[in-house]
């Protein structure tokens, strides 16, 4: 067990290092200069700034010093927001993005699983039909269009929820809804498929032949076995949701990481972009790691002893 964990941990660290390295050199391939971009007329200032941030040193030297920072969990300073460290930006804005994602997951995952289970149990019924159709319809609409329609209906006409901003819990409801729609329909569809697949297995017939109640057969045997494969995909999903959606953040004017991310790339803010990418990679790797370990604990077939 410990050996397995150590091995996984090493691979995770290696992956993060590879991401940081690839992105570091990829970003430097971009033409242009962040300071000229900010103030195109002042070449002298740009040169001064380059020297100030150490960007005039040889690339490998910069790379090594970046890695050194990374080891000490220091992502460096933003090039465009003077005086702000990437760590500070993450500390300030990530909680907002994460809150939105966690809320959407907390709403979407149980609801999607429940709908999937009900659809499978009452296959062919109205709910099943409705779920299948609405999941295709809702995912066919671009999220910003859907968000706009929801703002119009719930914000402008019904006035139930504020249209945008991020001030109180009420403000979070609309964006959470929009973001969770994808989660709900995805979970509903895969859970339904898995439930039906498990329903065809022999051990379900055995369970029925034992004479236990139908509810017990469904809950104890069918759902239990259907939900396990869902867990393997949860790592990437949780990571994706934690990083939120730039589009949703923009529609609802939410001060999350998304805006920083896009602006840092277009503004050639190397350290900021790199910091955010590495941060995101850490989340993905960590989520996968935790989910794999959890899965090993839950499913006896892959239990690592």
């Amino acid at each position, binding site marked *: 067990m410990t050996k397995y964990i150590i091995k996984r941990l090493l691979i995770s660290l290696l992956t993060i290092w590879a991401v940081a390295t690839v*992105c570091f050199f990829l970003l430097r391939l*971009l033409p242009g200069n962040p300071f000229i971009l900010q103030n195109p007329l002042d070449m002298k200032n740009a040169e001064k700034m380059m020297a100030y941030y150490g960007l005039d040193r040889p690339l490998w030297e910069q790379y090594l010093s970046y890695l050194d920072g990374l080891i000490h969990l220091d992502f460096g300073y933003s090039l465009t927001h003077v005086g702000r460290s990437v760590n500070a930006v993450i500390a300030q804005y990530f909680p907002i993005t994460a809150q939105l994602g966690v809320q959407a997951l907390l709403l979407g995952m149980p609801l999607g699983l429940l709908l999937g289970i009900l659809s499978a149990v009452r296959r062919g019924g109205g709910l099943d039909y409705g779920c299948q159709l609405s999941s*295709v319809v809702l*995912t066919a609409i671009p999220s910003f269009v859907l968000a706009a329609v929801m703002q119009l209906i719930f914000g402008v006409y019904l006035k139930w929820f504020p249209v945008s901003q991020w001030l109180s819990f009420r403000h979070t409801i609309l964006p959470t809804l929009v973001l969770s729609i994808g989660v709900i329909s995805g979970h509903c569809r895969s859970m339904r498929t898995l439930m039906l697949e498990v329903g065809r297995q022999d051990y379900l017939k055995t369970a029925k032949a034992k004479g236990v109640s139908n509810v017990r057969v469904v809950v104890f045997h069918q759902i239990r076995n259907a939900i396990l494969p869902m867990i393997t995909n949860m790592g990437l999903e949780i990571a994706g949701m934690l990083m939120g959606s730039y589009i949703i953040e923009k529609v609802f004017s939410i001060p999350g990481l998304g805006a920083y991310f896009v602006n840092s790339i*277009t503004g050639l803010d190397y350290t900021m972009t790199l910091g955010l990418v590495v941060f995101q990679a850490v989340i993905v790797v960590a989520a996968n790691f935790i989910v794999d370990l959890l899965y090993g604990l839950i499913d006896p077939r892959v239990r690592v002893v």
Partner: protein
Amino acid sequence: MEKIKKNGQLYDDTLTEEDFSPVPDRAAIVDQIRPSMRYWPEVGKRLMKNKMAIASLTVLAVIVLLAIFVPIFSPYEYDASNFLAAKQKPSWAHPFGTDKVGRDMFTRVFVGTRTSLLIGVIGALIPYIIGMTIGAISGWVGGTVDMVIMRVVDVMLCIPSMIYMILILVVLGGSPVSLIVALALSGWMGSARGFRGRILQFKNREFVLAAKTLGARPGRIIIRHILPNILGNMAVGLCSAIPGAIFAEAGMSYIGLGISPPMTSLGQLSTDGVAVFMTEFHRFFFPSLIISLLIFALFMFGNCLRDALDPKLRDEDYMARVYRRMRKGGRKA
């Protein structure tokens, strides 16, 4: 052999001696062997029987035809502004109204559809082909090559696809070509992983080994023997990759990095529409409607294609619906 009488009576005394003579023509009573079906014609037939497939194909065809012909025959140029006709509501002259500089929205929407379709189809196809090739090499060669490729895929999947997209759009500018390049670079990993799995699944099957024994080269084995087995799955995968590419373009447009004006796309038009949907609802409604319809039809067609390839699930769903209805009817009666 001994013969049986029951209570001294024959079971049925209407039978004649004729009945008990051997059949004259044995060939006539042999069960007719069910006609064997060829795979793809059969799939096509099932597809054509499915109303949803016909409906989604029709919607797709109409949108594609409009995208081809509207820009050709429209009396307006998509980028010709006419300030006298600005901000008009839909009318006979302008079925979808006009925008704030008086460009005809009907023409613009279908020029945009053209762009989106182009990006969607090519932007889905190219990463798919790249991924397939890399996946095939990885799966077929195996060993260190496989290990290295899969590690690279893992690392690349850890970097958000948005970063590739934004980087390339920043460098190359907002043209359909750069969008396709961006999609190709950020989208191949998934299909490489999938295709590798498929190759591994078939690599040691008997028919592949047989072909190998006969001296077929790997390329030939993959194309002639493995590909036909997974063509169906690939078609379904492609059907869902096209909406993905169209959405990616729309998302980039929303960020402000998509197709640069005056050229347009559905993503750009609906983004513009969202900004003004309170005042000029038609500018929001029509592009959003067309993009949603297009994606919906593609999803639906993909689903129908999957069902046609593997009709078991759909048949079960259909029967489940019939029983539900039967049971409901029974309860009422």
